[in-house]
C-alpha cells in the first residue's frame, strides 16, 4: 500500500510538473524568441562585420577596438554621460523636494499634484514635438527669457552648447513628476510613529527629514537612482525628435542610443551597432550593480 501511495504521489508530482511546464511554455517560447534570441544574436553580431547585403564576417574584437578610436562613438559616449548626469542628480533632488511638498496637507493639493503629474502622461515624442515649438528661436521661451535683455532670438536647439542643456531640461520636466510619485510612496511607507516620536523629542522638520525620513527612504532612493540612470542611459526619442537634425547640431546631442540607430540603419554597419549596444548594456549593468552594492553596504 505504501509503495502504491508513493507511486501515486510521484505520478501526481510528475503530472503537476508537466502541466506546469505546459503552462509556462508559451511565455518561455515567447521570451526565448523575442528576448533571448535577439540578445544573443546581437552579441554574436558585435563580433562580426555585417552590412545587411552580404553574410556576416567574423572579426573578433575588432568592432570594440575600433570604437575606441571612433570620434563619433567618443562624442556620443561623452554626450550620454553628460545627459545621464543632468537627467539623474537634479531629478533625484527635485523629485524628492516635490514629494516632500506634496506630502504635506494643504488646500488644493490633489488637484495640484494631478496637474504636476501631467507631463508624465504623453509619450516622449509628443513631449518633444511640443517643446520643439516652445523652443523655437523666436518662440515663447525666447520671449520669456530673452525679453528682459531685449534678445529676440535664442537658438535653443541650433546652438551646440544650448541644445544638450535644452534636452536635459525637457527630460527633467517630463520625468520629475514620475519619480516624485515613487518618493511619495516611500514617504507614505514610513510608520507615522517614527515622526511622532521625533516630534515628542523636539526635532524640527529638517532634523526629522534628515534623521528619520532620509534613512527610511534609502531603498526608495536606490530605486529612483537605478531607474533614472537606466532611463537616462537609454535616452533616444528626445534626441531624435527634438533637434532639427537627430543628434544635432554638430553631434552635440548625439547619444549612444541614437548612434546605434545611425550605425545600424543609416550606415548599415550592424556589427558596430551591435558592439555599441553591448557597451551600453555593460554600462547600464555596471551602474545598476554599483547602486545595488551601495544600497546593501549602507
Amino acid at each position, binding site marked *: 500500500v505504501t509503495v502504491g501511495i508513493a507511486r501515486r504521489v510521484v505520478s501526481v508530482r510528475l503530472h503537476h510538473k508537466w502541466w506546469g511546464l505546459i503552462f509556462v511554455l508559451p511565455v518561455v517560447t515567447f521570451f526565448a524568441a523575442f528576448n533571448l534570441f535577439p540578445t544573443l544574436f546581437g552579441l554574436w553580431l558585435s563580433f562580426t562585420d555585417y552590412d*545587411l547585403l552580404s553574410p556576416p*564576417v567574423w572579426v573578433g574584437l575588432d568592432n570594440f577596438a575600433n570604437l575606441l578610436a571612433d570620434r563619433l562613438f567618443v562624442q556620443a559616449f561623452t554626450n550620454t554621460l553628460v545627459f545621464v548626469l543632468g537627467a539623474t542628480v537634479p531629478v533625484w533632488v527635485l523629485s524628492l523636494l516635490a514629494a516632500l511638498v506634496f506630502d504635506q496637507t494643504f488646500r488644493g493639493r490633489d488637484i495640484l499634484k494631478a496637474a504636476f503629474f501631467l507631463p508624465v502622461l504623453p509619450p516622449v515624442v509628443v513631449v518633444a514635438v511640443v517643446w520643439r515649438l516652445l523652443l523655437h528661436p523666436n518662440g515663447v521661451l525666447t520671449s520669456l527669457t530673452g525679453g528682459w535683455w531685449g*534678445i529676440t532670438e535664442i537658438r535653443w536647439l*541650433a*546652438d*551646440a552648447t544650448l541644445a544638450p542643456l535644452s534636452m536635459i531640461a525637457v527630460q527633467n520636466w517630463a520625468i520629475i513628476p514620475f519619480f516624485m510619485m515613487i518618493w511619495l510612496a516611500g514617504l507614505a511607507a514610513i510608520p507615522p510613529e517614527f515622526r511622532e516620536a521625533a516630534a515628542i523629542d523636539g526635532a524640527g522638520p529638517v532634523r526629522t527629514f534628515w534623521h528619520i525620513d532620509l534613512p527610511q527612504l534609502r531603498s526608495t532612493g536606490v530605486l529612483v537612482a537605478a531607474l533614472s540612470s537606466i532611463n537616462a542611459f537609454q535616452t533616444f526619442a528626445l534626441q531624435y525628435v527634438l533637434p532639427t537634425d537627430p543628434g*544635432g*547640431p*554638430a553631434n552635440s546631442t548625439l547619444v549612444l542610443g541614437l548612434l546605434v540607430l545611425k550605425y545600424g540603419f543609416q*550606415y548599415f554597419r550592424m556589427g558596430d551597432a551591435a558592439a555599441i549596444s553591448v557597451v551600453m548594456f555593460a554600462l547600464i549593468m555596471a551602474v545598476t550593480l554599483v547602486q545595488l552594492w551601495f544600497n546593501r553596504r549602507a
Partner: protein
Amino acid sequence: MRPTSTIMALGYKTTKREQTTMRILIRLATLIGLFTWTGIAAAEQVTVRMWMHEHPPRIPIDKAIIADFEQANPDIKVRYDVISAQEYSTKLLTAFAAGSGPDLFNNTSTLVTQYFAARILAAIDYDALGYANEAALLAKFQGGFDGIRFQGKLYGVPTEVSNWTCFANNSIWREAGLDPKTDWPKTWEDLPAGAEKLTTRDQNGVPIRRGFDFAWTIPGTFWFTPNTMIHQLGARMIDEDNYKAALDAAPSRRAFQYLQDWAVKYRLGGPQYTASRTDFLAGKLAAECSFGIWGIPQMQAAGIDWSVMPAPRWADAVSDNGLDIYAYYMMVNARSAPAVQKAAWKLVRFYTDHAAELFGSAGLFVPRTEVTESAAYKENSAAPFFLAELKKAKFSPRVVGYTRVLDTILRGKDKLVQGEKIDDVLPVMNEEVNAVMNRERARAATLVK
C-alpha cells in the same frame, strides 16, 4: 459520340455495370488530365515581386500598368508592394539581408552604389528589355543614365530624372518693388544682396521674413548644393572613381565658405528657422531652390503665384550647370532566378514605356520623346525650362557609404554654422570623409565574394 459507345462499336459485349464503371474511369482520367495541364501551366507562370517607394499619385498608375502587363503576359504574375518612402531603404536592405529581396525594385541614384558593390544589381538584359543594344535604349531617352552606369555597364532604367531649381513667390517680390523676371540674381555673388532686399528684420537684425534661404533641414541640400557649386568651378567634391575627397581644396572651400557666410556673416537664414520649403509653401519666403518640377502642384495647391528661375552660377563659372540631378531607377535583383530576371526586365520595358502617363498623372519626369511631345508637357510652362537645366546638370558623386559621407559633411556644416573657422573644419571633414570612403570601399571589396 460517347466514349463507351466506341468500345461497344468495336464489338465488345459489356454489362451495364461495366459500362458505368468505364464511364466513371474515363471522366476521372479527363479530369486528372485537365488538372495536370493547368498545374503545368501554373508552374510555368513566373512571379515577379516588385517593390516601389510610396509616391501616392503614382500608385494607381502602377496598378493599372501592372494589370495591363499581366493581361498581355499571362505567364507573368506581378506581386506589387508599396513601401513608405521613409522606411524604403531600410526595408529593402533588411529584405535582401533575409534573402527575400524583391526581384524588381526602384531606388535613387545616390543610394544605388551599395547595391552595385554588393552585386545585387543585374546588368541590363537588352534581349529581355526589348532593345537591340545599349545604343537603342539610349536613343529612346535624352539622358538620365549616368547615375546607373558602373564600370561601363547599365544596371537600371530611369523612371524619374529630377533636378531642383529655384522658385520665386511673385507676390512677395512685387511687395518689395521687385520683379523676379528682371531682378533675379544670376550669380551666387549677387544672391545675398538680392535676398537682403526681400528680407525683413526686427530691431536686433533677426530675420522675421527671409528673402531666400537654403533647405538646411534637408540633408540632400548639402550634397547637391556644394557639389553643384564645385561642378560650376570645373572641379569635383569627391572623385568617385578613385574615392578621394577634395573637401579642403579651393573650390570646396569657396562653396562651404559661401554657405557659412549665408548663415553667420549675412544672417540671411540658417538651420534654426522653419524649413524653407514649408515657409515657401506658406507664402513666407520670397525664393527657394529645393523644388523639382514635382513641386509645382504643391505650389498651386498652396495658392502661390510662382515663377521658375535658374539656380545661380558663379560669376567666374567654367560650367553652366544648374543644381545637380538625381534619378530613380528600376533595377533587377541579380540573385533572382534567370527566368524571373527576364520577366522583370520585360516588365521594366512595359512600365517605362508609360513615361508620358507617369509624367501627366504623377509628375514624374523622364526625358523621353513621348514625354516631351505629350500634352501634359506642353501645358506645363516650367517643363521646357527643367529639361534645358537637366541637360546641363551633372549627377553628384556616387560612393559606397554615401549616408555616412553625407553625415560627416552635415556635421562639418553644423560646425561652420556654429561659427567655427573653415580652416579648422574642412581639413578634418576631408580627412574623415576619406577615412569613411576608404573603409567602406575596402569593406565592400572584402564582403563581396
